[in-house]
């Protein structure tokens, strides 16, 4: 065991996080000051984490002249939705959402498929140079996107894709992290089925198709959700690779709401921020479990 990347998954696709935690660790029924202190500390941490978001929500529901009210209010008692109307006036929110959804969705699907295939090859197929190739794939994670953006930009220009959504999608489909996750995932699946298949004389393709592929879905879902989360919020590449506002994604549109020379209104800007949170929030609610599992599964021990 020289590097952790060679570690397999501890206990299959979903780690024991969801299977309940070592709860019976201390004595049960006794109230302890220790526990109370701990919960209070955690509550403070949770307040600091959620407070800024609540403030954003409540400020977006006040008129601009009340936006700097102190003491701050975190709950909007008399919501004023005019700022939201203005966001729709100033930005084509629907188009921004459509673009973000197209870009993020296609990247997610592309990553799921390509990472599943490559991850399987690295996990269960034998070929010369496997170790070296996998190291190269992992090493690309270390190169900041800013380093390669100029050549990528010229490449995109050469392909005639300047200022298109495809310019955002295509380069993002090959994924080192996703490939790594899927390899770990396939390594963690039980091997009995594969052995049975190979005893039956199934070809590697059949083994994949009838044994592993049907079981790959949960792992692919993790890759997809992670890709969604990352690319939905991505800022730098869209900043460089898109020019027309028709091709903007949400984060770019929001920053431009801030306006030129201080003419932007804080409530409108915050209303835009809140609107952009909604889709991520939906994914959060439905995919939180898988996402948490994914984050811990691929990288945790």
């Amino acid at each position: 065991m020289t590097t952790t990347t060679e570690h397999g998954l501890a206990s299959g696709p979903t780690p024991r996080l969801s299977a309940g935690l070592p709860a019976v660790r201390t004595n049960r029924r006794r109230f302890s000051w220790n526990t109370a202190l701990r919960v209070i500390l955690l509550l403070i941490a949770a307040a600091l984490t959620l407070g800024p978001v609540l403030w954003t929500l409540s400020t977006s529901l006040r008129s601009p002249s009340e936006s700097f009210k102190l003491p701050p209010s975190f709950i909007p008692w008399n919501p004023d939705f005019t700022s939201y109307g203005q966001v729709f006036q100033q930005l084509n929110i629907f188009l921004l959402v459509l673009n973000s959804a197209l870009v993020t969705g296609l990247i997610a699907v592309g990553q799921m498929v390509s990472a599943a295939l490559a991850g399987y090859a690295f996990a269960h197929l034998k070929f010369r140079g496997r170790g070296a190739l996998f190291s190269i794939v992992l090493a690309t994670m270390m190169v900041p996107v800013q380093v390669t953006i100029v050549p990528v930009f010229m490449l995109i220009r050469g392909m005639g894709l300047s200022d298109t959504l495809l310019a955002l999608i295509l380069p993002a489909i090959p994924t080192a992290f996703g490939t790594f996750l899927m390899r770990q995932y396939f390594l963690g699946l039980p091997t009995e089925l594969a052995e049975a298949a190979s005893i039956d004389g199934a070809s590697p393709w059949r083994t994949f198709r009838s044994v592993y592929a049907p079981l790959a879905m949960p792992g692919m879902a993790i890759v997809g959700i992670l890709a969604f989360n990352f690319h939905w919020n991505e800022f730098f590449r869209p900043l460089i690779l898109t020019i027309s506002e028709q091709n903007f994604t949400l984060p770019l549109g929001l920053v431009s709401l801030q306006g030129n020379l201080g003419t932007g209104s804080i409530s409108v800007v915050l209303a835009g921020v809140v609107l952009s949170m909604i889709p991520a929030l939906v994914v959060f609610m439905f995919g939180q479990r898988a996402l948490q599992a994914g984050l811990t599964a691929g990288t945790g021990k």
Partner: protein
Amino acid sequence: MTGAINGQLRQITRRTALGALGVGIIGASVASWPRLSGTDIPGRGDNSLSIAILGTAADAAARQRAIDAFSRIHPDIKVKVQAIQAVDWKDFFTKILTMVAAGTPPDVVYVATEGAQLFAEKLAHPLDDYIRRDAADMREFFSDVHPSLVEAFMYKGSLYQLPMDWNAANMYYNTTAFAAAGLDRPADDWSHLDFRSSLAAMKKARPSDFTPYYWTNRLFGGVVPWLYANDTSFLKETRSTGGDWLWDGFYASDPSRSLRSGGYQWLEPNANDDRVFESFDYLRGLVKDGLGVRPEEGGGNSLVGLFASNRIGTTPAGGYWVQGLHEAGMAEDGFDVQFFPRWKTQRHQFGTAGYAMMKTAKDKDAAWEWIKFSSSREAMELIFPNPATTPARRSMVNEKLYASKGPAHWKVFYDTLDRFPTTGPIPAPPQQAAVETALMKNVSLAVSGDEQQLKQALASMQRDLEIALRRQP
């Protein structure tokens, strides 16, 4: 048995579901292909005249009426406006340079003073020949536009843009805060010391939850107006010769004719000038005594909210601010505007903007027709229906524009140019991006420490400016 069949069924339905999903994804991609490849953007890739402006889709739509009017006169020229969203002008120029790099430069670009010389040096085509050719049409335009604005677009004797809108850094003040402190409207020629004592009076009247002087760290309305008022700047300002063709042709009888040149030049840093130190030291004093804030870099997006909620006494801004304050719910008598305070001079700072024709424009004559049409009174009234900026035409800065929005002394806006004819543009050599960074990054340090820190910040500014100006533009 049944279990196996069930299993098979499940297998089949899952496979069908997956297949359907796959088909769905492929179908969706195909259906959205125009969106993915950008081919659904009108005018994309055709040979229509493409015009890039800083703004949102709403701004582009606002120009539609001007485009319609243009099409009635020139039905043969197809025009498309590309609104490019950006946080500031530097950001906007970055986008234009990116378009050039991507091989899809626009034909005409709306460029502000910040980028005028960058474009003149590298990207734009001079308008001289067209102006001479259509001198008869242009006479009416120049007679309505102050020569200071025009001179800002002169570069080495050639004119690259016609000013469309502009803004000087005047001083906005909150009338309620002034009244509460027992202050009258300041005199036209109030000095920097008068200004300071007004701030002190407001601070005394309302010690907390209030800032007498709010300013931000940027090229327009930051430290530069205080440098200009003190008859200095952070770059040495010189003029190039030439340009007489324009001044003699259109401004021969203007009282400020003798001041005009072939354009500004900023070739050397000047941050080690004694008067630069003096101006910075004055601002440092305001910050130290709690009369002014430490300026935020790139700040300004909280300005309207803060001013409209009566938490700011004074702030430098131009005519562009009226609409924003109105929309934020500020009454027209809640604020007013006065000239920037006098020091050694009362020279103001302004920024202006207009269309530049790109060297790479496919049809330069068509581009000129657009530029010329846009400078007409008819077009400008369509483009500037409200006081979100100050029109370059004197005749349009009128009662009607500011009706029910204020301020009471809106005349201050254009009078700035007439009263102080040496009023000059933002210092912006072709290396503007680097120069702006060199200035801005040292301002906060300069005004928020002791004298020693100020001296260090100015020394570092001088050095940074030297590096910036040495760069190939």
